[in-house]
């Protein structure tokens, strides 16, 4: 059976002098397709790139942005590094926890939100900041964060 990520992977491979370099992009492709990197998804990447399974797994677990369990429909990535922390990011973690019943690293029971605590996401001048899926939200306050999150179902 032809792998679902094979076609896109061909374009990606062409960018590099060695096939192995396509491993990070391939993991992204698999993650986009399946929502997270299950053992099957990683095995598929291993077959496509002819890289040993254990190597694929080693690389996939090294990087923070690859997900190794099912995530919610929306992923909140909230920064708590220094510039965000001194402007109140910790309180925002509490608000999300209380309002949506989701712990850092976890997913709400209804599958609506996963919460990931991030290191700096490059929005320190408009701290505190978060990414929801791939959208930046900056200059967060205890009030506007709920309004923003209500926009994600």
């Amino acid at each position, binding site marked *: 059976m032809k792998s679902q990520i094979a076609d896109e992977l061909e374009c990606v491979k062409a960018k590099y002098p060695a096939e192995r370099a396509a491993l990070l992009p391939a993991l992204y492709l698999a993650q986009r397709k399946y929502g997270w990197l299950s053992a099957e998804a990683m095995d598929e990447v291993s077959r496509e790139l002819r890289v040993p399974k254990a190597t694929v797994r080693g*690389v996939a677990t090294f990087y923070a942005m690859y997900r190794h369990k099912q995530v919610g429909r929306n992923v909140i990535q909230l920064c708590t*590094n220094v510039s965000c922390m001194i402007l109140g990011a910790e309180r925002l973690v509490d608000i999300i926890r209380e309002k949506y019943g989701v712990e850092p690293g976890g997913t709400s029971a209804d599958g609506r939100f996963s919460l990931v605590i991030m290191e700096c996401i490059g929005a320190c001048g408009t701290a505190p900041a978060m990414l929801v899926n791939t959208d930046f939200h900056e200059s967060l306050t205890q009030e506007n964060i709920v309004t923003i999150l209500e926009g994600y179902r």
Partner: protein
Amino acid sequence: MEKVLLANIDNPKSAEIGVYEASGGYDSLRKSLELAPDDIIETVKKANLRGRGGAGFPTGMKWMFASKDPKFPKYLVCNADEGEPGTFKDRPILEKNPHILIEGMAISGHALKAEFGYIYLRGEYPAAKGILEEAIRQAEAKGYIGDNMMGSGRNFKLAVHQGAGAYICGEETALIESLEGKKGHPRIKPPFPVNVGAWGMPTIVNNVETLSNMPFLMRVGPEAYAAIGSKECPGPKLFCVSGHVNKPGVYELPMGVTLREIIYDHCGGIKNGKTLKAVIPGGISTPVLPPDKIDCPMDFVNMPKHGSMLGSGAVIVMDESVCLVKVCLRALKFFEHESCGKCTPCRDGVSWLRQVLARIEGGEGRPGDIELLSEVAGNITGKTFCPLGDGAASVVLNFIKHFRDEFDMHIARKGCPIK
């Protein structure tokens, strides 16, 4: 000062190639393609351009090493990993002025006889990926890059490689490993990447801002460039200011502007009329400074003489309400999380520092803990594969050096005296 790196930034269409061309964009590339590669390297040396990624290494010298290596192909890699906490200076270039980077890379590629370029972009900048890829397509369609750039007979292929959330991949050898599809473990140096880099070939890694200086530098020439800002370390520089100032943001100012000028003249001083307590001048890995040490010229040569470093130009300003033990602990949590785990002094030492800081912050500090911190930090310094461990140790040592009282008080009063 005329804005160079942030030119057009207020134009909502600044990322489009037409807007860039209208203000002279790609003229420098046209001019540079008529020059011999070595002449461009000479120009960069004369201009005294230093790398903006954190270490301030002289760019012309790095390029000369790479250029002298007889192996081909050579690779030019733009470091757009921007992971140093507090840093958000490359983001406006990547998202709003992508063509200045592409033109800069094409000029640099010509100078280095590198036909392949990669932009190693951090995974946390998803919007920038689309913007850069579109800008590359536009530049290729116009014949500025790709095969036979502007009819010069030279080729330059450019692609974006997306990182996946690992701070250590900002370190150039870890970045190269990651580009090759591996874990981001730093390599032992030497050999240096300029000789043995990506896929074993000479590889030049430069920061986004460094490469983006090239169109302007080639347009005005080395003398005019070197006349901007500090004599020892000239040029325009991006400073990204966060924390308790009235006007945080990214500022383009001459190298050598003082920290005081940045905070009070450009950023409107401390918010809500409070007083300044501490500043981290160049991203979280650089030594913290107390308020009486902010008359330092912000450049790579002078900052070390004033007890800190320019780093990434990320100025984090903290007012009197901030608990510095907590800030130090948060910084160490970051380093512990981001240590790649390859070498023991960094992996175990940083974790140990974090644990001791956590108990001090939590009100369970013991007499002798500060000496313990100093000792552990001292045993990390100089004993690690890459500067991540050194950075973590120096953060702790400098917080203690300037703000020892606050640590003592946490231990004596079994908790934070500020609360």
